[in-house]
């Protein structure tokens, strides 16, 4: 899928709400580095997804700007995976610094396990299986609506 700006944002929010939620529910019982009650972990995990969504709108604006320097106005597959690094780091430091007050402090191994599993799952789904139910999605720059 070669995204448009609105398509990028919609795809991100859609995948967070579907793949992200499912993966959070699956991964939280086995994440390392914490002995917090599962209910609290679920709340934290879902709040992290929300933060990825909200910060993501800003990130997508930056990606869209960077994409303009590419003749093809495309976004190679690897970029979708590698952006895990800056996005993860920013969110991690914001959480550590307490800038996002509504999320309780998370041990780093817990955060990175959850974040990476969710990100890679979303990336895998966006690079193929997403097209199975949604046959028009890839021709609309990633718009879901």
């Amino acid at each position: 899928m070669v995204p448009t700006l609105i398509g990028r944002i919609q795809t991100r929010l859609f995948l967070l709400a579907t793949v992200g939620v499912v993966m959070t529910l699956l991964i939280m019982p086995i994440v390392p580095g914490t002995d917090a009650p599962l209910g609290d972990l679920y709340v934290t995990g879902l709040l992290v997804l929300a933060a990825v969504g909200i910060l993501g709108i800003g990130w997508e604006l930056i990606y869209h700007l960077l994409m303009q320097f590419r003749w093809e106005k495309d976004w190679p597959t690897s970029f979708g995976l590698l952006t895990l690094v800056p996005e993860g780091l920013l969110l991690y430091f914001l959480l550590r610094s307490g800038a996002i007050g509504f999320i309780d402090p998370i041990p780093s191994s817990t955060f990175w396990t959850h974040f990476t599993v969710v990100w890679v799952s979303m990336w895998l789904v966006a690079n193929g299986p997403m097209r199975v139910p949604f046959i028009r999605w890839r021709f609309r720059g990633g718009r879901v609506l």
Partner: protein
Amino acid sequence: MAAPRKPAEAGDLTPELLGTPQWTDQMVAAAGIPMYDVPFLTVGGGIGSFVTLDYLRIYGVPTGQMKVVSNIDHPWQTYEFLTRCSQIPRPERIRSDSSSRPDNIWGFPSYGLEEAWKEKNPIYLWQLLTEPILNDYWTPRAGTVFANLEREAKRIRYWDMLVKGQVRMVRKRAGGGYFTVVTPPEGAAPTKRIVFRSRFVHLAIGYPGLKFLPDLQEFRTKYSDYQHVVNAYEPHEQVYEFLKTRPGTVVIRGGGIVASRVLQRLFDDREKYGLKTQIIHIFRTFITGSHGPHIWARRKGGDGWAYQGFNYPKSVWGGQLKAQMRKLEGAERAAKYKEMGGTNTPKRRRWQEQMRAGRAGGYYHAVQGTVDRVEPTPDGRLVSYVRSSDGIIREPVADYIIDCTGLEADIAEHRVFADLLQYGGAYRNPVGRLEVERHFEVKGTASGDGALYASGSATLGGYFPGVDTFLGLQIAAQEIADDLAGRGFVRKMGPLRSTSQWFKWVFNSPV
């Protein structure tokens, strides 16, 4: 004295029919032409017709509701002929994205995943992951494409819908819909023509024809020499065979993918058989580096070539360029086409190496120039009079000239389009081809509750640019299928049916 007018035999077109834009059922019956009813008819029988039928079959249309009229036996026949001539036999790779699969409307699993699985080759996955940054684009083998098309054609029962014949014209029908006049193969029908009466017609008749560079056409006609000046899209194996027998010189014209392919063949043969072939490559537009009006519209290039992964910038198939073009009309649209257009080829690592070796070894010479004329030399070779923009005149002598420009003839060269422009109400778009709606209905041709659609190369210049590509044909097919759903011909496919149909594709079970 004028020849006496012969009355048309029964079952043939009459002067009355020929001269009337809109026909009635009675007119056709009076001419004695047998008439068959089918709600949806696609004309062409190549990949454009195939993907449209594939979509509609998967949406739920039974085979009895659709026919395809074609003069070829299987949808990939013409494509395979052209790719083979232009040096892509089945084991070689075409220039197409991994997830552009005309046999699979979902594009998943992609060709790359399939070849990696079948050949147990994880390198392909690495290439898919790192394209186009650390690696060339992964592209499928021609053979993979054809084998899968055959599988899908069987699955959707393509041959139950095929009618062999040559389409002569499509005319509007009084009361709605269209008549499609077909000339069946000799002896296949009792009359010279048959007619299909349908509510919907789809035209996917491909390239109207090849066009030669004018100076080469002049040479061929003047000297009746069709052996030494050849088009890369016609069989020209004699060139490579000759070069195996003695050292020779070849002039290549053009800077696109076909030129790259032909060059590769010449370099490969040179290496494989130890040949001494000299290659002179004439670019009309010689690109020396990145080019484009501003930093946000600059394409890479060098050594004569403009570099681009595929025929169009990638975002025409679903990204920003597709979204932008969809909103443009007239001159603005033509300008956008111009901005992203121009002949180009992918920057493949192997080709770069071969050309580097050729330049260093003094057997590959790329020059800028326009050719005024080509003449035979007394010893039966060919001299080209090449004028460069810096005023230098060169007169290279060669044994063969290969035209790799891939120029296309005007759409009116095809009888069906000529007729449609003259009688059907169709007109040209800003780049001179057939003007179609965003849903690929040919503008000006509506007839009652019927609709006439077109896809493929004839519609280049419309709201969607990548029409003459695998994925472009599928995008057109989806627009057409959704429009037909809006007209009540079939139900629009939602996520549930799409998913269940995908499983049927996976297990190769009937739709």
